């Protein structure tokens, strides 16, 4: 009998099934978007594929009723758990007026939804790290006990804003969880040309914060360290830098062709560790995920996505003149 690894983390059987379902949902939404893109129906996709274990593991370790999240463009798994619906993601992919992220103004992957404390993001990478520190600082002044969660790629951890934001959080011992989803590429540039340190988490020491590197294909590992980070944060012990090792299973985006800079073999190798399959295996091995249950999930997810796609495809665009609105308030 294989070992139950989630119980000791305080996760119920239902919890881990929910985690799996969220991962699967993220994956399936993403796959659908590629189909829609290749069919010429949506102009752009940027993928979560391969990152779902890290994303969902982390998201479940947060308090989705009060924490603030500052996700980056791949974090479909994170925003789904925080309350963004598939329909809303599809509205964003189709750039429709009802898209809650931006009303069709931004590309998909630029998440933002105030009611769920998903903080609006932009394209220039890592600008959200100082924002996460700022929201945590505001919470401290305001005597609230939430934490902020901010994520980014390993290439992006070379931006000045990562450094300045991390340092600020460290100096003020702010309740910030910085999570790097290290997939070893920044578009085409491999990690050796991005960073000279062995681990991105080696950077934590320079900010006086705890740093840790985990297998991002394993949502339970990620859950554990993010939960610990959250506890540290709430205890007033300051920020944590969590590095999750993942693989990007797709090209960088729908505009990229990765054949020019990495081999098929490399991707095949990565696919063996695909978190969707490895986590499913675990759940099957311990007898939680039955054929039937999985089939039900697949069916349910397919119908959610179908419905969302139909809705979004048929939804109206914002009127042209709407472009003039909301430059300033009042």
């Amino acid at each position: 009998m294989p070992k139950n690894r989630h119980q000791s983390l305080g996760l119920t059987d239902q919890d881990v099934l929910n985690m799996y379902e969220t991962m699967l949902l993220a994956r399936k939404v993403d796959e659908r978007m590629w189909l829609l893109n290749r069919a010429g129906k949506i102009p752009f996709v940027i993928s979560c594929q391969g990152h779902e274990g890290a994303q969902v593991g982390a998201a479940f370790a947060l308090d989705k009723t009060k924490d603030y999240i500052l996700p980056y463009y791949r974090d479909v798994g994170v925003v789904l758990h925080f309350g963004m619906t598939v329909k809303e993601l599809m509205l964003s992919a189709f750039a429709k007026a009802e898209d809650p992220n931006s009303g069709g103004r931004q590309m998909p992957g630029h998440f933002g939804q105030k009611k769920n404390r998903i903080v609006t993001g932009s394209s220039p990478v890592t600008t959200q790290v100082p924002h996460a520190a700022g929201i945590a600082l505001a919470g401290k002044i305001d005597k609230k006990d939430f934490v902020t969660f901010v994520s980014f790629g390993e290439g992006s951890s070379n931006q000045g804003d990562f450094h300045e934001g991390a340092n600020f959080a460290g100096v003020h011992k702010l309740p910030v969880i910085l999570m790097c989803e290290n997939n070893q590429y920044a578009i085409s540039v491999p990690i050796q040309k991005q960073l000279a340190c062995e681990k991105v988490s080696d950077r934590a020491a320079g900010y006086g914060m705890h740093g840790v590197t985990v297998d991002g294909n394993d949502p339970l590992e990620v859950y554990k360290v993010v939960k610990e980070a959250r506890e540290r944060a709430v205890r007033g012990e300051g920020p944590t830098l969590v590095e999750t090792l993942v693989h990007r299973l797709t090209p960088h985006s729908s505009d990229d062709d990765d054949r020019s800079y990495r081999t098929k073999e490399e991707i095949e190798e990565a696919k063996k560790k695909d978190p969707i399959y490895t986590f499913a295996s675990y759940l099957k091995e311990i007898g939680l995920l039955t054929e039937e249950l999985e089939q039900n999930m697949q069916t349910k997810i397919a119908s959610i996505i179908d419905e969302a796609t139909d809705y979004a495809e048929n939804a109206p665009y914002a009127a042209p003149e709407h472009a003039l609105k909301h430059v300033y308030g009042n």
Partner: protein
Amino acid sequence: MPIMSYIEAVTAALREEMERDEKVFLLGEDVGKKGGVFKATQGLYEQFGEERVIDAPLAESAIAGVGIGAAMYGMRPVCEIQFADFIMPAVNQIISEAAKIRYRSNNDWNCPITIRAPFGGGVHGALYHSQSVEAVFANQPGLKIVIPSTPYDVKGLLKAAIRDDDPVLFFEHKRAYRLIKGEVPADDYVLPIGKADVKLEGDDITVITYGLCVHFALQAAERLEKDGISVHLLDLRTVYPLDQEAIIEAASKTGKVLLVTEDNKEGSVMSEVSAIIAEHCLFDLDAPIKRLAGPDVPAMPFAPTMEKFFMMNAEKIEKAMRELAEF
């Protein structure tokens, strides 16, 4: 009414807003214990404590970025950039983030941050402590840029900036800090952002300017008055977005327009003022729209000879006014 210096009005506005609203806090280099390198925040650390008057690490992008985060949460951060010249590392946060938060989120989020910075020359500050930086930002919808000229305006406009629901860059002329004094009501008042102010009503020539140059222009106008030349003087107060209506009215009034800025000439906010006039009241003009500005060199040098050559003053304005009046 009490007489205050320009910088005292800054401090008064900050103090009153912090007393009024717990959500207002300060963030910047040396703003705490030291009270700021110019003393704009003097006494506030003692009064409000280190949690609301925060000595930030030396990192401008974080000062802006942390402020932006706090503002999105609902606080009213007032960030100080020690010298306007050092706002450049924060440009990405200001232009890509603060300016676009409301728009990009389709009005879901907003960013009520105020970023203060002393700017301008004439203080032996050399290349990097003398610059006018407003033109870098004066083409970024979503931002407002306020540059007050008097202590009265400082207090009313800084309060308005702090209460504004959108990001405001608030540039204070450092030469004005102690040089310019004026009456400032002790009570609470705000002045509208986006509105220019007629400083002098006149018939012969129109001068449009802002910041310290308003005072130089007033001095010059006084001298001209003695010779019977009457000057209509408009203080822009907000340099972005501009008060088009006031500009058009002022220009049409006399038909002879002089635009004055301490900034380099090419690409200054005065180019936009000129373009507005040329677009809207060309046929009311009796003379070419004249601009008086700093030379197109990177910034004001340290040596007094070259600094003086660059820096605006009443004499240069007087000369340009007379030329225009005689046109």
